[in-house]
């Protein structure tokens, strides 16, 4: 079977290399051909495919395809096509290589059948993705990227230690649900949650994503957190903690999304919020919930990419990304606006759009479980999502007062990419059967019941009512909203610098003291040498006296004793 030898992740990884040297049209062609090839390879993967391998004394399964992993493989391959179309005009080989490697590692992680392979791709993902931030080439991006790297390195180490603990505890490296508990369980969970941007381990995401390049953010939004959702679904289904953590995430995300001013940061907080639904879904753990999680990850990647492409297009064409500096762009970027709105309607689960068919699955799963509070809070988060993503952001960016900006419409390839994503959002929205067919568990769920429709319309319409009533006070504030990254950006950094300075002071002090003594001794020796004392010959008399003294002492001691 071909796909067992052509691991899609490896094909993609090696396929990334030519991007470093190809130029112009050739690069663009390869940039499209490669993801399509990978899409074909993923299509060729059969449920149940497996490749095993022995490395450094360990039994590895670099490829394992089953229902859960294939959903993610599909969407990863798909978003790579869309993202590459969006990035077609960017003339920066490093960024393309990074994006492709990043996608490769994401694919590799979801296809990994053992923990080592997972770890390998996990770390490659970190290394590749940070370049998408750094290639923005601004000081803020360097710093944010660095923080991103450090947080993920920490996550990677937690994962490594967790894997080791799991390995030593159970003797197995297979990547299945973790049931053993103990330190391994918590370490791996913590590592996964860092990548899933679950509070309090989330601050890297809204910190770094808005600083990434316009095209980079699109990829970033797709892979890291969704890989985390996949591994959570694989490793921790039905973990009660995750239900509450997920619910908290949804609300935390929408709250901060409302507070921030940068449109891409706003959307980044919404990634967090949406991933919260998925984390909660994993926590619920029922077949419906897991399927809903997979479905929501699928649709989320599409609509979030679409939203970020829209925001990125605005940033690219205007050079601005703050709500307070934007406004009235619909005249100049009408296509972007419309396509963005498709994404907005999708994320807020507007009927006929993709979010509706997936998000409601998770909420329904909570309802089926009889979890009233979870149900209500998730619904409330939906209110917040609709308000900020679909109403506030477009209102203050595309409509509202005229900011005086006169950009042109985004380039064709960008619009094309957004168009494809929007089309998929819409198609999934109206024909969810295609999506449901590839879910890990067969689902008996219909989003389009009258009851669902009615409730969803009530929710959205009255949220809109409240929004427009309070429109006057909802505009962006040109402020910075502190998040938990404050702890490592301010006191943590100071503590580190303090320790370093303390160590340097001790080391320097000790060295200086030693060298002082040493130089003093050296100077003394030089002085002695120059002073002729050690060079002087002793007079014969003193030699004789010494002789007498030695003899006398010897005899005295001997005779006296």
């Amino acid at each position: 079977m071909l796909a067992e030898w052509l691991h899609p992740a490896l094909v993609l990884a090696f396929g990334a290399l030519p991007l470093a040297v190809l130029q112009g049209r050739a690069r663009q062609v390869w940039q499209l051909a490669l993801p399509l090839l990978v899409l074909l390879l993923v299509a060729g993967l059969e449920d149940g495919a497996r490749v095993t391998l022995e490395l450094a004394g360990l039994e590895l399964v670099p490829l394992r395809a089953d229902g859960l992993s294939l959903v993610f493989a599909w969407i990863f391959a798909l978003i790579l096509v869309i993202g590459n179309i969006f990035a077609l005009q960017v003339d920066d080989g490093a960024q393309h290589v990074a994006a492709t490697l990043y996608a490769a590692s994401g694919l590799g992680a979801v296809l990994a059948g053992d923990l080592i392979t997972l770890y390998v791709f996990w770390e490659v993902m970190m290394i590749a993705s940070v370049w998408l931030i750094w290639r923005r080439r601004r000081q803020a991006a360097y710093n944010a990227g660095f923080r991103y790297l450090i947080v993920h390195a920490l996550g990677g180490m937690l994962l490594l230690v967790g894997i080791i603990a799991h390995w030593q505890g159970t003797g197995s490296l297979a990547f299945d649900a973790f049931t053993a508990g103990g330190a391994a369980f918590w370490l791996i969970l913590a590592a996964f949650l860092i990548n899933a941007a679950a509070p309090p381990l989330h601050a890297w995401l809204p910190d770094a994503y808005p600083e990434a390049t316009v095209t980079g953010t699109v990829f970033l939004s797709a892979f890291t957190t969704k890989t985390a959702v996949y591994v959570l679904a694989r490793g921790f289904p039905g973990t009660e903690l995750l239900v509450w953590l997920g619910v908290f995430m949804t609300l935390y995300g929408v709250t901060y999304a409302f507070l921030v001013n940068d449109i891409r940061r706003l959307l980044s907080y919404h990634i967090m919020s949406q991933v919260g639904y998925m984390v909660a879904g994993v926590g619920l753990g029922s077949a419906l919930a897991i399927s809903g999680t997979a479905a929501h990850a699928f649709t989320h990647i599409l609509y979030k990419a679409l939203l970020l492409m829209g925001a990125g297009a605005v940033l690219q064409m205007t050079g601005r990304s703050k709500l307070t500096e934007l406004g009235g762009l619909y005249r100049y970027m009408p296509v972007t606006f419309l396509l963005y709105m498709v994404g907005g309607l999708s994320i807020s689960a507007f009927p006929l759009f993709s979010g509706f068919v997936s998000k409601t699955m998770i909420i329904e799963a909570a309802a089926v479980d009889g979890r009233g509070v979870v149900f209500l809070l998730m619904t409330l988060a939906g209110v917040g999502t609709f308000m900020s993503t679909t109403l506030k952001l477009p209102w203050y960016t595309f409509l509202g007062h005229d900011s005086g900006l006169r950009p042109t419409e985004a380039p064709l390839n960008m619009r094309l990419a957004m168009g494809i994503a929007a089309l998929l959002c819409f198609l999934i929205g109206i024909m969810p059967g295609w999506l449901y067919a590839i879910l890990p568990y067969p689902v008996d769920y219909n989003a389009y019941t009258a009851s669902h429709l009615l409730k969803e319309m009530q929710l959205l319409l009255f949220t809109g009512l409240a929004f427009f009533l309070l429109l006057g006070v909802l505009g962006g504030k040109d402020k910075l909203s502190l998040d938990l990254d404050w702890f490592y950006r301010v006191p943590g950094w100071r503590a580190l610098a303090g320790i370093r300075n303390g160590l340097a002071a001790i080391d320097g002090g000790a060295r200086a003291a030693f060298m002082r003594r040493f130089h003093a001794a050296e100077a003394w020796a030089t002085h002695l040498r120059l002073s002729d004392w050690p060079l002087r010959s002793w007079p014969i008399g003193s030699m004789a006296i010494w002789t007498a003294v030695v003899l006398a002492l010897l005899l005295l001691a001997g005779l006296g004793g």
Partner: protein
Amino acid sequence: MTPMVAVLIPFLGAALIGLAAHRPRLRDGIAFATPIPLFLTVVGLAVNRVADGNPGTQRLVELVPGLDITLAVQPLGLTFALLAATLYIVATPYAIGYMKAGGYGNLARFMACYAIALGAAMGIAFAENLLTLYLFYEILSVSTYPLVAHTGTDKARSGARTYLALLLVTSVGLMLPGMIWIWQATGTLSFSSGGILAGQVPPAAGALLLVVMLYGIGKAAIMPFHRWLPAAMVAPTPVSALLHAVAVVKAGVFSVLTVVLYIFGLDYLLELATQPFMLYIAVFTMLAASLVAMHQDNLKARLAYSTVSQLAYIVTGALLATELAAIGGGLHMLMHGFGKITLFFCAGAIYVASGINTVSGMDGLARRMPLTMLAFFIGALCVIGLPPTGGFWSKWYLVSGAWDAGHYLVVGAFMLSTLLNVAYLMPPVMRAFLRPPPDNDPARLRVAEAPPLCLIPLLITAAGTLVLFIVADPAYQLLAGGIP
């Protein structure tokens, strides 16, 4: 095919280089040629050892019964020898290219000492007992002294003086009496599986002996005897590469591993009161050196402190006293060797090509030297311990060993150190790839990749770190077979 041949080839090469001192072409030819038979010999020894389990023990001199100079091929030593012989092949053209491009003089002395250092490293690798190891250890210290002081400037001399003083003071002052003590107590110095001290030396005395021996091996650079390493940075870069990746520091940690495994023995080690103490000193070294490395602007100084930190990984691995950690230590010797030599090669190539030797000066350099910086990036990944480089495997086993031993603080320290590694190895990469080059600096525009003799070796070693990720299995099997 005996270990003696492997030891002799570099010495012979050094002698020939000395004789051909006034014929540059011949001299370079010999310098180029010497590593090849050496490498083949070591590979031959490895094949013999792996295929027939034949240690090829060779007693050269017997001083008194129980005290002899003997060579043998043991798995751990074979790993070290393979590392050194392989890197020697790439280091030689690099050294010649670098020294010529940099306009250094006295090449015959330089190359001869280089070869002698490698011969000494071979001797250390194939030592069958502590005395033999000590013998070659001292030869290595002395033969690298002229290399460090090569330029002969005041700064170089003072650095070289610190270098030699610390290495000799520790080895003569601590290792030698420790060794004699061991000999007095046990009547043998042969390395044997499970150690020779158990039942011979009471744990109270063994505890003191452990401290004496670990600090006696100054080349392992455990704080506070690490100063020689940054001091030796005054040397030309090929020497730094030799010191920090191939011969000297690896000889140090190899000695630590060997002494811990085959003199003390892991079980006995655990009885010693100072084992946790030394373990945490090593852990402290690991973290403190990383912290210091973070604010070194001089690239080579940063790499030197990084080496101090990485050596402490291996010492920690040895002192954790578990099989997994010891394998991890052995693997890290190998992996760090490849990673660090790549970094030093890059630092040297950058210096030769552009005259830049600071991290802050590297802005935008990747546009002029993309291949070098790519290799630097890969080398950095290996040193950090990230896949897909070989560094991952060593970290895997080190952390496994720490976890196995129940030293969770050490596990935490490995994690923290990884973060610090990222924090000091990534900024040069970031600056080179991302920052715009300094404006109005016409000199910078003329910078191009270093000469091929410098460039090709560093690409090879960088590729080596990636290859080692995939072919880690033989190294693992070799080490696992030799560690009790």
